[in-house]
């Protein structure tokens, strides 16, 4: 058993830290306030290859392993969870299914523009009446001559506002349940796709969360991802890996809040001594560290299993659950350590508190994760 990072992982971590310290961290408050990541920052992130971290070199990616990618999401999310989910949703939910299930032509057609950030990727599964119950989607497709025609509504699309490439799920016949669902690679600038606005949210306000109306959207036959009827399987497999990305994002948020709390506790004096000398605060910091370390171990383990191409769905579910619940708890306590200042935007822990909550919800709620875990322990 080896708990050490390799030289490659250390290099990636340091590279990500340099990017975070110089570009992402200074922009984090504005990213939240302006409800968007500055396009110049998105361009820098793209140019440095962070949107193609584990895409193979032949498709213009950096060819790093999955653990390197997880390290990147963690480091970025320490400073800005909105930027973390930009990279995570793009990579886990769009690049990954193309890599896993795409044909060679599809990989050649779509991955280079995704790897270089020319197009930002997203995932169009959720609908107004179908969230966790993903097999029950109402977006339909029919075959017409040399194409598929898609109709329906999609909501809660992370990164949707960039109008890049989306993995769209639709059913040919709702009576067939999950077996009727297929996945398509769709350029979101295709005619018939109408963006219905950006949601106002509690947290990750710098991340676009958009709704789409699909009105007779024509998708070329060669852009069917996998085989017809395999869409549900592709969605589940994608979310298995995606959950590790969300776990890393949550872990990063918790670590960011912890680092600030520790520094503040050492610096802030009340009653003639630093907060860090008060046992009530010491215990908060100890509990934060306990939870963070547990979340880190299971997140890295899930990433490691994926790197080894071993089964990781249960570990991904556990990592996402533990890390997200750690993030909401740690950020709440971080505000308490900061007292009144914790409630002020400038101190950033209030943003982290708002950002953390979504990690318990998206890419499968924690209740869904517990179903996955329970099913495994009772099998």
């Amino acid at each position, binding site marked *: 058993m080896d708990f050490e990072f390799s030289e490659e992982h250390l290099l990636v971590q340091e590279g990500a830290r340099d990017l975070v310290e110089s570009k992402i961290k200074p922009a984090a408050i504005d990213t939240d306030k302006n409800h968007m990541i500055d396009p110049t920052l998105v361009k820098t992130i793209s*140019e440095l290859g962070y949107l193609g971290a584990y895409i193979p070199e032949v498709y213009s990616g*950096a060819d790093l392993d999955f653990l390197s990618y997880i390290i990147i999401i963690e480091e970025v999310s320490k400073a800005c969870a909105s930027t973390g989910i930009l990279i995570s949703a793009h990579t886990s939910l769009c690049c990954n299914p193309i890599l896993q299930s795409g044909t060679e032509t599809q990989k050649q057609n779509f991955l280079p523009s995704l790897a270089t950030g020319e197009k930002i990727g997203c995932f169009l599964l959720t609908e107004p009446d179908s969230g966790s119950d993903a097999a029950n989607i109402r977006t339909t497709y029919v075959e017409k001559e040399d194409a598929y025609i898609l109709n329906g509504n999609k909501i809660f699309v992370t990164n949707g506002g960039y109008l890049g490439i989306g993995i769209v799920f639709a059913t040919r016949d709702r009576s067939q349940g999950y077996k009727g669902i297929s996945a398509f690679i769709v350029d979101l600038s295709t005619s018939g796709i109408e963006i219905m606005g950006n949601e106002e949210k509690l947290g990750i306000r710098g991340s676009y969360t958009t709704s789409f109306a699909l009105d007779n959207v024509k998708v070329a036959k060669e852009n069917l991802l996998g085989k017809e009827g395999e869409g549900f399987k592709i969605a589940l497999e994608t979310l298995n890996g995606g959950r590790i990305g969300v776990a890393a994002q949550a872990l990063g948020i918790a670590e960011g809040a912890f680092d600030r709390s520790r520094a503040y506790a050492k610096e802030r004096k009340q009653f003639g001594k630093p907060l860090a000398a008060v046992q009530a605060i010491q215990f908060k910091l100890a509990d934060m560290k306990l939870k963070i370390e547990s979340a880190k171990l299971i997140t890295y383990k899930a990433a490691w299993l994926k790197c080894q191409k071993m089964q990781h769905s249960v570990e991904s579910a556990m990592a996402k659950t533990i890390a997200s619940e750690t993030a909401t708890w740690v950020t709440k306590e971080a505000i308490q350590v900061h007292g009144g200042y914790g409630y002020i935007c400038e101190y950033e822990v209030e943003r982290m508190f708002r950002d953390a909550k979504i990690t318990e919800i998206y890419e499968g709620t924690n209740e869904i994760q517990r179903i996955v875990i329970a099913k495994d322990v009772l099998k």
Partner: protein
Amino acid sequence: MKILTTVKKVVDVELNIQVKEGKIVQDGLQYVMNAWDENAVEATVQLKENNGAETTLVCMGDSESTLMIRKAYAMGIENGIHVDDPLLESADSNGYAKVLKKIYENGDYDLIITGKQAQDTDNGHTGIMLAEYLDIPCVSNVVAIEVVDESQLAVSRIGDSGTEIINVNLPALLTVSDSINEPRLPALRGIMMAKKKAIETKTLADLELTLEQIDMQPVRTEILEYQAPSVRQAGKKFEGDAAEITAKVVQLLSNEAKVI
């Protein structure tokens, strides 16, 4: 042009450094490339990109120093030499300069670029000593480098009375200021390529150097003890009527601080 760039691995001073019984507590320390050396690497890579150059980096230190070399690779340096010898653990600036002299002599370089100082010791000795030992021109605190021709550079440095522009014949040594450039962020693809590149590792024996030759028997200077800087006292805050506060502050500056 063949350029030799030197890099030092230093403690990350952004993190909390603790001193116990006159020694720095090693546990929990993290190391980074010396910030001024990052400027040296950037200056080197820019010269390579703009004028064409063969670039070699040298870093002395334990096995973790290879991370500094790989980071420089990711930024665009082509070759790396790692001098790894436990005998160098207690080396001072002079010892390092003597080892670097040998590296320079083995490589037929036209230019040496170093950071003007290291952020851990803040000495700023090594580069200047190296130039002296090699008997080549040295320009310190450099803020711009222009290639005049194959044998000459026009170098700007910040001096006492402003910017000085100096024409310097090659071979030469430059120590660079942090205002010379903004070191580039390594791209992930660069990091990936850096991982695959070879690093030439040398011991003192490989370099045919003895401790006597590098003035380390005994070492010329030695750090006897570290002391933590004293903690800054909190200031005083006055609130209320401006005139009353002013009178009080004047009285304190005069009687307590004794500065007026």
